[in-house]
């Protein structure tokens, strides 16, 4: 039988990144994002809650996270299913929630991404992040996602003939956007000098290339019907791709095959082509990964991202606007749990022309890209503003 159920994003919330010691723990951070979306939909019956979180075992010593979070908000009889897929947990959680609504199993489902990164010191956080690599063959020997990104950056610079200064355009542009975004963690502009003088994290990757770790949460509610008639946002396509492998087995560090496949799947489902997309949110945990994502999705020709960014071709006012809110670079990186949900919540606001995106202009189609590790598992979500 032909399934005609549509899936709408009927509510969204975002708790800006920070060192939220004053807010309490992971439960409080979850509740803040969740109750905001719950209050937007009134007494809608939620079938389930999908919780995107990557590191609660390591950072908070907590497993079966969903159950405790649901109980904390008075919903212990609602199944709260925790999804862990490293720093790409959000996209997979949205995919699972979407499937439940699309299949007619639930009318409405909440998706909440939450991660509290600052419950531990930096070196312990690095350890948690290194579990995203193949721990037996990479993480055990000191390999971290930053080291992987650094080698990809080096390969990109050699392949396309760029200097580090050329690639510094990513943090400069993201900080520029973040300086106009009250939801951003980094609200200040960055100059080329700031970027070049920042400390080296993993040569050639510098501090300004790394999305800063933050505590954060964000949520959406997906339903099979819109709850209002204006600025209705619908999920038209959702795709997942995989290229899970040890870095040494790869032929190229400059193409993200999982991103390409996820995007093609989403485009086919939405019956649109990549050139129809007006807005993109890409997962720039490291600036190089943001650039590679754009190119692997087919939004930008391979090797062209730094040039296009520096001419302003991807800024607001153009046919394609990339990371209008400043990306994870300026929003902060709320671990695996909430980074993709930050992107999704921002995209919903961008399409709705909600604060602070009133002046972005009316756009119809947006794409949200999330990825675990270096090209391990990726998702792409295509959102359409239908009214």
């Amino acid at each position: 039988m032909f399934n005609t159920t549509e899936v709408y994003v009927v509510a969204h919330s975002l708790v800006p990144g920070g060192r939220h010691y004053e807010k309490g723990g992971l439960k409080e951070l979850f509740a803040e994002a969740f109750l905001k979306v719950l209050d937007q939909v009134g007494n809608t019956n939620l079938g389930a809650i999908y919780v995107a979180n990557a590191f609660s075992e390591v950072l908070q010593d907590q497993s079966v996270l969903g159950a405790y979070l649901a109980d904390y908000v008075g919903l212990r009889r609602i199944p709260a299913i925790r999804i862990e897929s490293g720093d790409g947990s959000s996209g997979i959680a949205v995919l699972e929630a979407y499937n439940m609504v699309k299949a007619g199993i639930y009318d409405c489902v909440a998706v909440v991404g939450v991660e509290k990164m600052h419950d531990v010191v930096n070196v312990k956080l690095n350890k948690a992040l290194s579990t995203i690599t193949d721990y037996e063959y990479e993480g055990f020997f000191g390999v971290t996602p930053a080291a992987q990104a650094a080698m990809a950056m080096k390969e990109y610079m050699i392949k396309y003939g760029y200097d580090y200064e050329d690639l510094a355009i990513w943090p400069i542009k993201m900080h520029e956007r973040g300086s106009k975004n009250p939801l951003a963690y980094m609200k200040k502009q960055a100059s080329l000098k700031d970027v070049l003088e920042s400390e080296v994290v993993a040569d050639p990757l510098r501090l300004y290339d790394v999305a800063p770790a933050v505590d954060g949460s964000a949520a959406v509610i997906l339903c099979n019907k819109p709850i209002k008639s204006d600025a209705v946002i619908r999920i038209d396509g959702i795709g997942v791709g995989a290229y899970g492998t040890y870095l040494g087995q790869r032929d190229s560090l400059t193409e993200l095959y999982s991103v390409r496949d996820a995007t093609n799947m989403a485009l086919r489902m939405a019956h649109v082509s990549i050139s129809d997309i007006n807005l993109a949110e890409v997962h720039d945990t490291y600036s190089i990964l943001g650039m590679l994502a754009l190119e692997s999705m087919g939004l930008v020709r391979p090797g062209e991202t730094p040039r296009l960014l520096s001419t302003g071709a991807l800024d607001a006012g153009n046919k394609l606007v990339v990371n209008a809110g400043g990306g994870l670079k300026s929003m902060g990186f709320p671990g695996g749990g909430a980074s993709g949900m930050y992107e999704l919540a921002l995209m919903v606001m961008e399409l709705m022309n909600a604060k602070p995106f009133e002046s972005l202009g009316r756009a119809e189609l947006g794409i949200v890209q999330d990825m675990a590790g270096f090209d391990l598992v990726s998702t792409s979500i295509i959102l359409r503003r239908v009214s």
Partner: protein
Amino acid sequence: MRAHILPAKAVCECGSREFKPYPLPSTGKLVNFTVLYSVPVEFEKMKPLVIGIVDLGGVKVVGQIVDCMD
């Protein structure tokens, strides 16, 4: 068909489940590397780490580069 595989797997992407241990050459070509300053907790006292990819005749190994002159 013969291929050299690292890391070890139960099934090769080609479908084969038959593997034989194979001695890798003791020298290879460094194809990429980075100097990592922000390290996981176990490596705090050893930083910075040189992380590299070494091609050992068709099999690439990712790991720490140690005992090398700068």
